[in-house]
């Protein structure tokens, strides 16, 4: 408010002193809480850069006396899960192989579907949509086993393709809602004008709506990249060790009971897994917030 006021007539409350009591309380609280929220990230980074002897002697909050990148290299290329010792790199590439087709499939299906629901309503479409949204709240556990049977029947159990299908299915409620609300907010005149010009269902979608909907697609991509990358439940059920996504492999590496615990390697591996969503988060900024707000607020 203070910044945006260029009027000559004073408007709004009197400017507060910078060090008023309430300001000290507000900033003080926020800074203390921010430090608390940042602490785990700090601990992860610091631990991952220390050697094991230093970890055993020192404290987890102190920066390393001697920086080493050994844990990162080991976590990426040599850490063991069971008999495989090729590190998290395999899980990373598995996750990429799961992520990209899931992203394309789920977003194209949901955007076309949301478009149909917003602009081409047919009898029963609202009923299906309502059940779809309720589906987002049904505990996954109740649908897990029937999907196992389905995937086994079509021969996709344990494969990346099967998991892609699962992500497409469970990404559908939220993405459809996102696209439906977006397309419904587009002025109807535009839609009618395109129809008068002879554009049909697909013509309007590809030539009119798609070019003007880039931001909502970015929001959907952000939502799906973080969601799919962070998934553990579906990965652990529908894939096998050779195709495990990164989160599942990470958990297996860190929580394996064999051998001496290498906390620095574990933290490097944890950070590596968190890096992709964190990068998306810090790059996308406000769009990420828009994505989760769209996900949170009902239609």
């Amino acid at each position, binding site marked *: 408010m203070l910044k945006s006021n260029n009027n000559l007539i004073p408007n709004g409350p009197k400017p507060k002193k910078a060090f008023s009591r309430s300001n000290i309380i507000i900033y003080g609280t926020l800074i203390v809480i921010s430090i608390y929220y940042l602490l785990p990230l700090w601990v992860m980074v610091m631990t991952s850069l220390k050697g094991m002897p230093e970890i055993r002697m020192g404290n987890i909050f102190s920066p390393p006396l001697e920086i080493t990148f050994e844990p990162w290299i080991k976590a990426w290329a040599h850490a063991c899960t069971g008999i495989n010792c090729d590190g998290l790199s395999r899980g990373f590439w598995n996750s990429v192989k799961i992520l990209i087709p899931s992203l394309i499939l789920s977003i194209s299906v949901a955007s076309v579907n949301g478009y149909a629901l917003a602009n081409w309503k047919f009898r029963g479409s609202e009923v299906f949509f309502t059940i779809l949204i309720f589906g987002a709240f049904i*505990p996954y556990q109740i649908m897990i086993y029937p999907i196992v049977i389905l995937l086994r029947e079509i021969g996709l159990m344990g494969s990346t393709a099967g998991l892609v299908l699962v992500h497409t299915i469970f990404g559908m409620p939220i993405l459809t809602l996102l696209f439906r609300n977006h397309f419904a907010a587009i002025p109807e005149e535009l839609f009618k004008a395109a129809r008068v010009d002879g554009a049909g269902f697909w013509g309007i979608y590809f030539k009119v709506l798609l070019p003007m909907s880039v931001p909502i697609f970015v929001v959907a991509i952000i939502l799906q990249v973080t969601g799919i990358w962070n998934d553990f439940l579906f990965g652990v059920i529908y894939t096998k060790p050779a195709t495990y996504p990164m989160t599942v492999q990470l*958990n297996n590496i860190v929580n394996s009971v064999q051998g001496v615990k290498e906390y620095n390697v574990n933290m490097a591996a944890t950070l590596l897994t968190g890096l992709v969503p964190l990068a998306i988060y810090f790059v996308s900024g406000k769009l990420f917030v828009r994505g989760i707000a769209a996900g949170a607020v009902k239609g």
Partner: protein
Amino acid sequence: MKNIKKTKKPNQFFRNINAKIASIPMILTVLIVFLGGSIWTIVYSFTSSRLLPKWKFVGFDQYERLWETRRWIISIENLAIYGIFSLIFTLVIGFTLAALLDRKIRFENTFRSILLYPFALSFIVTGLTWQWILNPDFGLQGVVRDWGWKSFSFDPLNDPETVMFGLLISGLWQGTGLIMVILLAGLRGIDEDIWRAARVDGIGTVKTYIYIIIPMMRPVFITALVLIAAGIIKIYDLVVAQTDGGPGIASEVPAKYVMDYMFGAQNLGQGFAASTMMLVSVIVILIPWAYLEFGGKKHA
């Protein structure tokens, strides 16, 4: 009227056919996976399925066994403890943070980014990180002891009494940011005039929040409540990563019970019965919410 319609559009099915084609994935998902899958599991929860689904009905046997199993009872108790505290703390902390960010402060974006970033992480990452911070030898407890407070004890993950609070610490760390953002959006929707009126009437800031703003934000709070509750019932990854249900079975949760009985103990019937119980609990939460949300609007 009906007759005119009939003669005008002889084939209803092909009307709007492209939209129907575009909706096929949704229709299949709803019919086969959401409805079909749920009903299938509910039906098979009344059978004696073990390694494989078996078409042999045993009535409520699975449910009786479920409620006689100590592990399930502990899972439910844990979920209740975690749920109640998580609900209270997430709302209180989330609202406090949102209110602080709403006080027209500088660096709002920076603070918001910091408070929300854990939400971008996987529960596995969160769980493993806090497992390390709460490590009794090298983590927080070890550090404080090194500072000279030798008798300091903070080892929640290895004590059956407090392990759920160890999980709560990391769950709150990850989840409060989301609720903060949602409540902040709600606060931004409050008319500036309300604040002016409150100020004119000489009502203090805290009082204005409690008696005027919060009641006005009821719909936003309900949304937040539903989101938190849905998240609580689903809690699984965090437990697997941070404690794996331990020590012993002290931090087991229902979702993990389902998974372990379905895929570990090869006792499908128990898994089906437990997951049906989870569905029932969600419906108990959802129906009043749906009524408030959608039922109320029609009357207004």
